[in-house]
């Protein structure tokens, strides 16, 4: 069953720049999809249209029964509650503790006042510790986030999104600022979450090889248009060059 559907979605910034043109695709529950494409091709606009961090200009987006583009403020909050998001630069509140950052995932579930005051129930806190232990971060729980390494910060980001009990996790370049070994740890965690918890994951990825290795489906985007949508096995060299609009030998990543 499709959990997310894009129907000819377009986005223009300042009435001039076309970020997305006529994008249509649908994602089934439990899928692990990677979106690849050159920088500025509109990858992160797609992700941000799903949770309305960016408003699409035209077209329809359906997520779990919600018509995203027509949703009011309250409904958007309901939608965002069900969607976790992980960022390239982790986007944590650096001066708060790890556990406080993880608990931020509960804000959407709480009343405005309790959340603003930073009041969480014991059960939520225990749950946060449980999630941290799964990600191997229990010892860091009371450290401030600016004391952590990049890989650890990204695991806090994952923990925060898991705290939301999401149906879908959006990953915006989750490993672009990490070294290869931390990147592997992060990708393994996310793919484990996808398999064991049946949470749908949509990735923006720079690294074609990583996308091919982990995902079951790849969507290629070039200047705001979908130019490839299929299994990683069928992604040929020439197709990759078409996505990146490059010539033979110009790309560092070459798929064997």
């Amino acid at each position, binding site marked *: 069953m499709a959990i997310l559907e894009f129907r000819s979605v377009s986005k223009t910034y300042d009435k001039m720049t076309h970020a997305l043109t006529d994008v249509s695709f649908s994602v089934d529950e439990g899928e692990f999809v990677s979106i690849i494409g050159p920088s500025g091709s509109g990858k992160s606009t797609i992700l941000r249209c799903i949770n309305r961090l960016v408003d699409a200009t035209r077209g329809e987006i359906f997520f779990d029964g919600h018509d995203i583009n027509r949703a009011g403020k309250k409904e958007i909050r309901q939608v965002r509650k069900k969607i976790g998001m992980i960022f390239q630069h982790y986007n944590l509140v650096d001066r708060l503790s790890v556990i406080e950052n993880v608990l931020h995932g509960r804000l959407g579930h709480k009343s405005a006042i309790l959340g603003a005051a930073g009041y969480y129930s014991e059960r939520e806190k225990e749950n946060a510790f449980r999630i941290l232990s799964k990600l191997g971060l229990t010892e860091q729980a009371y450290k401030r986030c600016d004391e952590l390494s990049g890989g650890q910060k990204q695991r806090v980001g994952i923990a925060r999104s898991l705290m939301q009990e999401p149906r879908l996790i959006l990953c915006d370049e989750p490993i672009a600022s990490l070294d290869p070994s931390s990147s592997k740890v992060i990708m393994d965690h996310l793919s484990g979450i996808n398999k064991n*918890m049946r949470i749908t994951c949509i990735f923006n990825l720079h690294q074609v090889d990583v996308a091919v290795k982990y995902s079951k489906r790849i969507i290629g985007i070039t200047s705001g248009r979908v130019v490839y949508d299929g299994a990683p096995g069928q992604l040929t060299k020439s197709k990759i060059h078409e996505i990146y609009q490059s010539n033979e030998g110009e790309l560092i990543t070459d798929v064997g």
Partner: protein
Amino acid sequence: MSKLAIAEQAPVSLDLHKYMRKSRGGKIKTAAMSKSGIAINLTVLILAGLTVYGFLTFDYKNINFAEAVSSTASNAKVLFGSPRLKYNTLPGALSALFTTFSLGALSTIFGAVIAFFGALLCAKNIANPIAANVIKSAVAFIRAVPTILWVLIFTVAAGLGSVAAVAGLTFHSAGYLIKAYAESIEEVDGGAIEALSAVGAGFWQIVFQAIVPSSMSHMTAWTFLRLEINFTTAIAIGAAAGAGGIGFDLYMAGSHYFDLRELGFITYVVVAAVILLEAAATRIKAGIR
């Protein structure tokens, strides 16, 4: 989702409790304990306490607060709502404005020249540490004396007139700019200075070949910022010390003629000039960079 729900019902294992910090009531703590966090909380607490203490101890002289506020509001409406000139003419106001600007410009130029040499003597990376400390302390002293006091002191010591105003403004400008310039110079890449001294360059060659080119844009930015400050301070000094210029016109309109509408007109002239100066400074800074 379902697995998470199951996990939630299971009791938390003992070794997880080992990592939790509990409050006396047995609740799990969440905050990080860091030196900076404690310092921020303490600072905020002390400032809040001082504020409350201040409000409780101020001598309000039994003022009728509500009445004063409402009459201020209606005065503000007259001031900003219906400006016009009566005792002054527009050319007169503009020429007074130009005088004030000139006071600001003169003191900025003097301040910048003094500060350039002062900064060379106290920038950590090129100066003698003892001389640097002496100058830095003197500069801290000069900056701590409010500009208005410098001006008042100089009016008696040197006689009323532009000399007193410029001297007063220059003291504070130089103090401010020495600190700012010294910080710009300290940011200059040590390698460039080392390379030049390695080929046998003298002090002034190092200054003009390495330091000036690389800290020029910073210094210019600081100088223009100071020009803006000097301009507004020159207005205030004109009003408070009778040093002339548009500030004196403001003072006359407000405290001599008690003419709100005149005060309003001059205020608009001043605000326009400040905004214009800011825009011009931004333009020139961009051109130099």
